[in-house]
Structure formats: structure tokens, C-alpha cells
């Protein structure tokens, strides 16, 4: 389930790592700015991921192997 390169879990994990490094405060300024902009990029990607999935409910038709919309 990793078709378009960005994984939410990894994004959040990297983000938390960045936040903890920045909070520690001993990062050189140039690196801090790089980390910060990477952090913003990850946040936007994560936010995007949250709404990316369209609500869809399907049921597998075992005879045809097709997925059919499921209303129950």
C-alpha cells in the first residue's frame, strides 16, 4: 500500500524526529532552517494524506473477482 511514495507513518515519525532535534536546540542555524522547511513539507504531505482517501465501501464478488459497491 505504498504507491505514491509518501507514507503517513514514516512522515509523522520523521516529523517527530525533526521536532525533537529542533527542540533540543543545539542544531546549527543553517541545519535548523533546513529541518524546519523539511518539517513544513512533511506536515503538508501528512495533512494531504488525511483527506486523500475518498469514502468508499466495496464488497468483493467472489465469482467474478470484481469489487462492487456495497450498500449492505
Amino acid at each position, binding site marked *: 500500500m505504498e504507491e505514491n511514495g509518501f507514507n503517513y507513518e514514516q512522515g509523522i515519525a520523521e516529523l517527530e524526529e525533526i521536532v525533537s532535534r529542533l527542540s533540543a536546540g543545539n542544531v546549527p542555524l543553517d541545519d535548523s532552517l533546513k529541518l524546519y522547511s523539511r518539517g513544513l513539507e512533511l506536515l503538508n504531505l501528512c495533512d494531504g494524506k488525511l483527506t486523500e*482517501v*475518498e469514502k468508499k465501501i466495496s464488497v468483493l464478488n467472489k465469482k467474478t473477482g470484481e469489487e462492487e459497491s456495497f450498500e449492505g
Partner: protein
Amino acid sequence: MYEFRDILELNQRACTVLFADEQLSSLKVKGELSGIKNYSYGSFFNMKDGTSQISCFMYKNRIDLLNFRLEEGLSVNVTGFVSIYPERGSYRLEIDTMSRAGVGDLAEQMRRLYERLRSEGLFAPEHKKKLPLLPRRIGVISSSQGAVIHDIINTLSRRNPHFDLLLYPSAVQGESCAREVCEGLNYFMSSSKVDVIIIARGGGSIEDLWGFNDETLARTIYNCSIPVISAVGHETDYTICDYVSDMRTPTPTAAAELVMPSYEELKGRNRNLRDVLDFSIKSIIDRKRNQLKYLSENKALYTPMYNIEIQKNRLNLLKERFNSITDKRLTDEKNRIGSLRKSLALLGPSNTLDRGYSYIISDGRTVRNVSQVRVGDEIRIFVSDGVIEARVENIKENE
């Protein structure tokens, strides 16, 4: 051919036949209790062994005599007789007495399977896979009928409007249950369409859930590359499927809650991360700025200007010290000269001359006695305000 008046008469006749049978009218049998339903007048349940089952009824007043409670899976020995309930035409065992016969066969079977699989490490916590934080697509293996799938869909919808669910319809009880659930797992594994799987079924008796105590199913779950959540039965029902799955939830609703984080929570978490990120970078920049400010206020930064300033000050100081020393020396000298001058004045002749005395210079020397001059010598007489030039006319020496 006998023509019955009605069905009731038919049932009553069948019942009479059963009652007439020596073995059926007074019998003893062993089995496991399941599907217990209690009413004020008595309890209905099934008795079951490995192959067969029979509906049973026991009156409340007889149950009250027991020193144990009727429980699912309990293995018992009973005495009673077989009858037909005339209104329904259903055949059942009416129980007079009941005694416990140790742990039920099914429960015992499950326990043995549990022990074997556990010793093989199928339930080991370190083998459990982590659930995805945000599932992109959720696979559900369950019946497409009934409340379970609806509970799951409703719960997912409530927590997050963004979800994608694929249901693999499967029998969830009976002999095909274990096989179909395995097929579902294999389908999801081979198609890579989902990133988490929920196996769901409502509550039921140990027989109803028996398919989930299947060894092949347990091994399929164990080897499944996708995380599996077991949501089989109610809170108190445990199956092998629960133990081997990566996560067990007491109900299908709980499984849906577990698998899908609340959208608001995720949004809130991202907002918090954003705030922390902003705060961190701001405080780093503030700190750097303060460092810079501190440095810029430090005079050492202006070398060589600062050094020149220092040297100037030093020089001024030296100058002042030098001046003050020199001044003192001058004053001292002046004072000394002044006092010398005074002493000189006291020793000199002018004071004496003022008082009316005079002195005589002859031949460049001060005249102290008469022998120094002869008659006719030119002499100079000094008085306080001038000189008198004169000639010696007579000399008288004191006697």
C-alpha cells in the same frame, strides 16, 4: 392409513410413542452445554458432543437444586427423558438431574490447540505486527449480512469521513467458516489491496465460534503479511483467532475504532506538530539573535578601534601622572629658591646699610683695618642708597 385430526394430535401421538420407549423415557447421557437461554420457569439450551447436538429444557426448580451454574462449554452428565413439544413439534431432552463431567470436550480441544500453538510461538508478542497509523484501505472478512459489517461501517464513518473499506464476504460459522476466512486472508495478501484486515463476527456459543479455533486459520493469520485484527464474538468469548491475531478487540465496533484514528485527533496532532515546529525554529532564531546582539555589544568586537582607545587612555593617565610629578618638583624648587633668597637677604649688607652703617671698598677689597689703606688712596664708601667716592687724608689707628 390413519388420518390425524390435526397436527397437534400428530405431535401428541409421536410423543406417546417416545414415552413408550424404554430407553428414551429414562435415559442418561453426556454432553457439553451451549446456547443457554434462561427464563423465569426454566432454561433452554443445547447439549453437544463432537458430532451431534440435541435441544434441552430444564425446569427452574430443578436447576435451583444444582450446586453449579449452567455455563457455556460446561460438560455435564444428565438424566431425563425425550419428549416432543406438541405446539412446535420439536424434539427435546427434558432433564431431571445434571452433574458436572469435567471440562467440556470442545473447550478441552481448544485448550490443547492453544497450548500447542503457544509453545510453537504463534502468540508471541514480538511477532505481532504494528497497525498502520492511517489505513489507506481496510479489508474486512465477515458476513455481508447482519449487524456486524454495519457496526463497523458506522463506526468508521463516525470517526473519519475518509476511509476505504473492502469486504470479503465469508461464512462466520459452520464448517466452511475457517476455510473461507483463510481464503479471505490469502486474497488480501496476494492482491495487496489493503493495509489492515479485520476478521469480524458477533457473539455466539462456543459451537458458533468453533471455526475460529481452527489450526490452519491460526497459521494463516500467523503468516499473514498484513496486520490482522480479530473481532470475533463478544468480550468474554476468546478464540484461537484472537490469540494469534496482531490485535484482539472485544467487539467489531471496537475493531473499527482501533483501526481508524479519529480524523479530528489526527488533524489536532498535525496542528500541534506545526505549532511545536514553529515554536522551535522561532526560539532557535531568537537565541541566535540574542547571541549576535550580545556579541555586537561587546567592545572587543571593535579591535583595533577599541585598542586605540585603551592606549589613548593609558597615555593620558601617564601624562597626568607626569605632570603632577613635574609640577611638584617645580613648586619645591621655587620654595627652596624663595627661602634661599630670604636667608641671603638676612646675611647680605643691605639691611645693615639701612640702619646707617656703610662699608668701604679699596683696591677691590673690603676695608677691615687701617693698615689696608694709605694717605692719598682713592676709596669707595657704600651706603644704603649709593656710593661716595673719597680720598684718604689722614689715618689714625686705635690705641
